[in-house]
């Protein structure tokens, strides 16, 4: 087999998505980016986008039910349910719709703001939160494509933020150059933490899931320790917090000072394009996908599987490290031990929802960013705990992973589904043997 550039058509699709398990849910390929329009049309026709939309709708409905069931007004009205059932239903509707309206207001558009620009401030918040999600999600996704399960994004974000932050507050360089070094340092820090499981997997066969989980904990304690040392701790502070990054070291805010949206978002767009190009247009990307689809076949074809593991984990760690840069040089501007929040774990769901396709990850990141930004507003306005966002997110991923279930719930073409499932299995087999 010659290692040609793969054409971006359906042939490249069977290597898509997480570790190659038949029927992972890849019943139909997601639209590929080359011929956007045709791909989307094709995928609507074959039901993949339909399933995705239905999965989102179903999850939002279930989340709404949960909100309604635990609402106090609903509980009060339900005590006289049998005399006036309408009251209970009305209260339930108000609880759920009120929460979602607040979420929308916090995530997309706030009609109560003073100016038109400020009305769209929530949307910029969504994109700000989405930035680290997209970058770390890409890190998880590329590892998936090579058949590796990278749970270590959390630790990689921390290391990226640590390296970038240190350059940002202890070096003093001119504008532009400083930021460049910060970004590079973040990439290197993440890559360093990512390449450890890659190397261990390649050299000793150590399971990457375990190694990345362990490295997450080590990273948390490492940054916690460093923030108590003089070279990292803010002088005069007894808290584990670093000095502020220099003004030359932070991402400029691209829409002015009222909006937190920073240049990091453009970095995320560029990274998405870069990963897409790498996976679908470069020889390295083809080899990585071949390793992910079937390591044995890849080895037979002369592709070095061990090298693939090392390269992809370095890249995955680097991307997650960039998410750390977005945090430390974009939104936070100081290094704390909680710099990674829960982005590293959310990134896994983002990658799953995006089916490990770069642009899929991008939109999944924006969607989850919206949930997160809106969830804060929802909690403030209606008292609905932000945890509901986690519930809805995980339900979406579960439903999208099991199209037959969604189709069964909405009673759409069962036969076609079975056929598609069989088809995708054959595709996988042929993809592996190719």
């Amino acid at each position, binding site marked *: 087999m010659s290692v040609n550039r793969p054409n971006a058509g359906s042939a490249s699709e069977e290597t898509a998505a*997480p*570790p190659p*398990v*038949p*029927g*992972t*849910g890849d019943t139909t390929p997601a639209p590929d980016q080359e011929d956007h329009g045709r791909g989307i049309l094709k995928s609507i026709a074959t039901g993949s986008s339909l399933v995705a939309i239905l999965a989102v709708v179903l999850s939002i409905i279930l989340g709404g039910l*949960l909100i309604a069931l*635990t609402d*106090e007004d609903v509980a009060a009205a339900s005590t006289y349910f049998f005399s006036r059932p309408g009251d209970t239903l009305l209260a339930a509707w108000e609880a759920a719709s009120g929460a979602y309206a607040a979420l929308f207001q916090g995530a997309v558009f706030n009609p109560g703001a003073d100016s038109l620009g400020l009305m769209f401030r929530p949307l910029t918040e969504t994109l700000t939160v989405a930035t680290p999600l997209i970058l770390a999600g890409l890190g998880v996704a590329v590892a998936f494509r090579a058949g590796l*399960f990278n*749970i270590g994004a959390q630790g990689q974000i921390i290391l990226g933020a640590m390296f970038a932050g240190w350059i940002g507050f202890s070096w003093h360089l001119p504008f532009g150059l400083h930021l460049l070094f910060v970004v590079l340092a973040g990439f290197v820090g993440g890559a360093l933490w990512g390449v450890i499981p890659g190397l*261990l997997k390649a050299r*000793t*066969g*150590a*399971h990457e*899931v*375990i*190694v990345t*989980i*362990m*490295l997450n*904990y*080590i990273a948390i*304690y*490492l940054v*916690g*320790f460093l923030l*108590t040392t003089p070279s990292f701790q803010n002088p005069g502070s007894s808290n584990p917090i670093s000095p502020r990054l220099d003004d030359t070291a932070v991402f400029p805010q691209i829409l002015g000072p009222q909006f937190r949206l920073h240049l990091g978002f453009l970095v995320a767009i560029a990274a998405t394009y870069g990963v897409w190009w790498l996976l679908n247009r470069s020889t390295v990307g083809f080899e990585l996908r071949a390793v992910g689809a079937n390591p044995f076949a890849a080895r037979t074809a002369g592709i070095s599987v061990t090298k693939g593991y090392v390269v992809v984990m370095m890249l995955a760690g680097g991307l997650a490290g960039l998410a750390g840069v977005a945090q430390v040089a974009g939104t936070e501007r100081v290094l704390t031990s909680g710099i990674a929040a829960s982005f590293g*774990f959310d990134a*896994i*769901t983002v990658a*799953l929802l995006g089916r490990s396709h770069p642009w899929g990850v991008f939109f999944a990141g924006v969607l989850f960013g919206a949930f997160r930004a809106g969830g804060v507003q929802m909690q403030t306005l209606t008292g609905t*705990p932000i*945890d*509901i*966002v*986690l*519930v809805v*997110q*995980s*339900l979406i*991923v*579960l439903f999208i*992973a*099991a199209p*037959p*279930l969604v189709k069964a719930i909405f009673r759409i073409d069962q036969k076609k589904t079975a056929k598609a499932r069989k088809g995708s*299995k054959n595709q996988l087999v042929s993809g592996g043997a190719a």
Partner: protein
Amino acid sequence: MSIAATVTDPGVAGPSTRNWKAPIGFGVGALIALFVFAIGGPAATAVFRVSDDSDRFRLADIALPANVVGWVVAVALIAIAVYAFLQVRGGRGINRWAGIAYAVLFVVGFLTWVVGIADRPSISLAGLVAGSVTLAIPLIFGSLSGVLCERVGVVNIAIEGQLLSGAFAAAVAASVSGNAYVGLIAAAFAGVLVSLVLAIFSIKYLVNQIIVGVVLNVLVSGLTGFLASTLLSRDSATFNSPPGLPEVRIPLLADIPIIGPILFQQSIVGYFMYAAVIVIWIGLYRTKWGLRVRAVGEHPQAADTMGIKVNATRFWNVLLGGAVAGFGGAFFTLVSVSSFTRDMTAGQGYIALAALIFGRWNPIGAFFAALLFGFATNLRFVLSIIGTDVPSQFLAMLPYIVTILAVAGLVGRSRPPAAGGIPYVKE
């Protein structure tokens, strides 16, 4: 049967190609011991208290001069490293006991050193050991759940979710009923519920098992967090004040120094933990059921040919695993703390997963691996009390670093069940 033979083969003896990992690892450890424990050894005397004043039988304290112990340990470790080097050079395998002796000596050297440099160089050995076992209990239940699922070929990342759901259900059920034992049963059911989703999605819908597991953890975290901040916080007297499980002390036996408290002075969850380890080990390796389970996990096609219902076996085992982990989750709310707080399992499910792999998918191995994690966590608490210069973060990192080294092959390559993670579709 060949399947049984391959499963029980520990695989310690290296292949014919010379494997230098062990001697190198031993050598590095011996050098650390030489420079830190021996040359850097403090002149103090480390005291390990065996008995407390209130004990019925009192034994004398063990007082060790730290620098002498440091030198003895360092020399012994160097000797073992040299032995390993010679064995590998001669193309021979390394005796397993050499590795165990090495580990024990290293721990003794480390403990003596770390206690010796503390401000008050005296710790209670009984307290250290008993605390380690207590901290390890949920880990052990979690990794037993992993053993049950993975031996049958279903990767269980959802241990965290099972523990958390168990903790939540135990708190609510015990509070509402006013009976801690009802809470225990509810915890097991909650674990089964999480397992049910894992089983249905991975076995019926053939969704990647790791994906389902990760998503389930998020789902359970969100769901219990949501309910905790709505229902539970609104009326915590009714929903979130479970009665605790009492400590059951077996008279006389519990008075045995050191091992008495850990074996005979536990809550009922602790006794169940010992029972579960033994029962699951016997079940897996000494019964027909266990043989079938392992066959399904290693070679489902062959098992199917022999008339074993592969997917049914997987389904029931996954549910059983959920029950075990859920039961262990009850430890958090009925034994350890007396109310549910969001995300209170704090990643212990993932540590249980590591213990499972460290313990090579074997109940007894997982038990000792979980004890190691419990020991490391407890040591950190104990050392922070006696006041030490070692940054607590480094002590906290220790078990994770040890796990990476172990998984990377110092103790021999661990091999998961061959069919793990692969759905079985009947041809």
